[in-house]
């Protein structure tokens, strides 16, 4: 256990824990767009910056991304100084220049009093902030179907050669965890389309309700040793089946003399 000072309050934390986890546990509101517990910290969005200092630093300070900075004994942390708020305002200002029509960015910027960007807007704006959360989650799940391509102004998230990604299974983890809802998908009928590839959705054998994609079920049964017939029913039908089979056992145990 180590002891750190957060906004003047002594807080105990586990060794090796990242600062952002401690701040979140202390219910301190730190904005962060690219953070997810499932993946390694990345430090892309720069919004979780905090000010750190130590007694022996003689008044010197440093600004670090709290998601990437491990706690250490004797750290003194400030989370909402004038400098930090100014810094976050600048970052959000730049985000607004890149993504002017994104509601999530607009809301966050409005919280910090930035209503309009002071920079020149990009010519062809989209919702992507290039935080790389989708590619990191895809890597963590073991698919690595998408990644960041090109450099500089042309950098974007795309499947290999911008064709339909062969490794994608259509699990939607990238789209559902995107902080700005940039990744679009469509579920029309029994077809799901994401990243330009079409997937067939499995249907419940009894009620016809849609479950996961066929490719995802095949991946799970092949790599995670789950019988393929588990995916024939959805959760509601599975519960009914369970009630039926457990009911049979209950009836049998009632009829058989003890």
């Amino acid at each position, binding site marked *: 256990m180590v002891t750190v000072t957060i906004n003047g309050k002594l807080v105990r934390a586990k060794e090796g824990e990242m600062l952002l986890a401690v701040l979140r546990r202390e219910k301190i509101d730190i904005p962060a767009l690219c953070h997810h*517990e499932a993946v390694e910290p990345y430090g892309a969005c720069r919004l979780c910056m905090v000010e750190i200092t130590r007694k022996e630093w003689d008044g010197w300070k440093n600004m670090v991304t709290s998601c990437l900075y491990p706690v250490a004994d004797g750290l003194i942390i400030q989370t909402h100084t004038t400098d930090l708020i100014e810094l976050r305002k600048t970052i959000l200002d730049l985000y607004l220049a890149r993504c002017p029509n994104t509601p999530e960015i607009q809301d966050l910027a409005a919280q910090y009093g930035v209503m309009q960007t002071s920079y020149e807007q990009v010519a062809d704006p989209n919702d992507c902030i290039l935080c790389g959360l989708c590619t990191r989650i895809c890597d*963590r799940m073991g698919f690595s179907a998408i990644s960041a391509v090109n450099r500089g102004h042309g950098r974007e998230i795309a499947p290999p050669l911008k064709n339909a990604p062969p490794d994608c299974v259509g699990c939607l983890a990238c789209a559902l*965890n995107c902080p700005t809802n940039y990744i679009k998908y469509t579920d029309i009928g029994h077809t799901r389309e994401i990243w330009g590839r079409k997937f067939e959705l499995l249907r419940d054998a009894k009620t016809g309700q849609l479950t996961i994609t066929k490719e995802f079920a095949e991946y*799970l049964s092949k790599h995670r040793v789950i019988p393929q017939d*588990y995916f024939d029913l959805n*959760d509601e039908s599975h519960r009914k089946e369970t*009630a039926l089979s*457990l009911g049979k056992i*209950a009836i049998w145990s*009632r009829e058989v003399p003890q």
Partner: protein
Amino acid sequence: MKSRFIVTPILCTGCRTCELACSFTHAKDGKVGRSRIYPLNGGFKDLYVPVVCLQCEDPACVKSCLVDAIYFNENTGAYEINTEICVRCMACVAACPFGCSLFDTQQNLVIKCDLCGGDPVCAHFCPTKALTYKSIAV
């Protein structure tokens, strides 16, 4: 000594008190759709089976989770979902052969029975003791 959650379907009257108890414990507004336990009629007259997570020994939900969000709680003997790690890919919902890994569309979370941290509220409320939580010799 380990404690297990024991379901005795013969004693169940289908009063759905457990469903209400579960909803009020885990969700603020107590909507029955948020429940993790479902007393269903299994096709036999007057026989209700409370369908709830059985905390399997080799669970399909843990095997199917690609980000290791479901872990075994040594103290309570329950498999719990860390909702911060969960990426909502719905693999566990599709994989559970008992249908006890559920998706809450309102909170946008995957939920399952976690035995209320070692003291299941539904067992306290069950009027006929069809649901019990007691120590068993292993």
